[in-house]
């Protein structure tokens, strides 16, 4: 128990100190997406799935946004720069925006 506590403290401290600000920005955005998805899921367990497409559209939009944010984080992390020689962080951000636009189109279509 003590070990877990100290390990987690160490993890949190290291995270706060070492992670660059841009990545923390993306991380907080991912936390926000996660919370939205959890709240939607709790609602559907209470209210049932009628209308089905509305729940699916909302939930899948949170999941997909989370995945896109994770991709952005991976591509803009300076430590991974060697794996992405042709993709600059700006390019990654532009891709992120474009994919989000497509996702929002699909969600608007499905939302009904």
């Amino acid at each position, binding site marked *: 128990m003590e070990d877990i506590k100290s390990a987690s403290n160490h993890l949190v401290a290291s995270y706060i100190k070492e992670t660059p600000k841009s990545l923390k920005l993306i991380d907080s955005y991912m936390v*926000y997406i996660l919370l939205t998805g959890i*709240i939607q899921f709790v609602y559907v367990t209470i209210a049932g799935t009628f209308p089905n497409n509305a729940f699916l559209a909302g939930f899948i939009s949170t999941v997909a946004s989370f995945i896109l944010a994770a991709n952005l984080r991976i591509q803009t992390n300076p430590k991974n720069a060697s794996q992405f020689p042709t993709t600059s962080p700006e390019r990654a951000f532009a891709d992120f925006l474009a994919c989000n636009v497509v996702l929002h189109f699909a969600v608007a279509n499905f939302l009904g």
Partner: protein
Amino acid sequence: MAKFSSLFLTAVLAAVVAGSSSWQVADINLSIVAKDGTKKAEHKLVYPKVISSAEAFAADPTDHLKLSFKVQNNERPHQAMVRFLSKDDQADQIMVAASVKKASGKGRFELDFAKSHKKFKYGTRKYDMTLLVGGPQVEESLQYALGEIEVRGPTSNPPVRAARVQYEVQPEIHHQFRPDQKLINVAISGFFSLLVLSPVAVLIGLWSQLGIKFEPLKALAQNPVDLIMAAVFFGSLTGIEYVFYSYWTHVTLFPVLQYLGVLSAVAIASGRSVLSAVQTRRLKRTEKSDDVNKKEN
């Protein structure tokens, strides 16, 4: 005198050409013969004599009914038959044909009730017999009601009549529409709608905690082209999101696609310039920090 004789001549000629006006059938002989050959009953009929029901003309299922007659016209009939019409509710009609010899005009048939039509076997019934003689040469066909006959049904294994289909009004069908699905209570749904927007507050809190520097804005203010491009970029992105919202509410697909085409072109163009500006700033920043590190080292 001449007129009268010519009229008489035409009438005679017409009679000769037209032929007889009705069928003349004579020597009608109806008899019931038992299986062993003995005659059970016999009637010699002359039109319009009828076998009445009082005379109890009856046949067992094993008997034969013999009919013979002579057609006295010069012409021979195409159809000569006896129609049996049952006198009960079913009113079955059974036609039994008689063969007429061309040479003599004599017609006859011998009806074996056991081997003939199935309808004779539905039980003991009374039938009205009618002799029907007809053909194209004679205008008026002969319909001679011969009388009544009782045919007894078979004693063993009587056939069963197929049930008659009774078409009548069926009970009315009342269509049950599926009841609408129950929607959740508005209060709960409203509460959760607000709850789902609350993580935005969490996001803003986390972002403010990060301590973001607004240095790029100062650089943008100095360079108006960059500022305009940035405004256009964010404006186009907001416009795209608004188009999606209106697509959800009321607009159909094709106007939406047109708007999206225009707005996405604008977004791509302005986005490229904005992001390239961001990249030059980042590279300058890293160069500066590299120089500082080098200096320190």
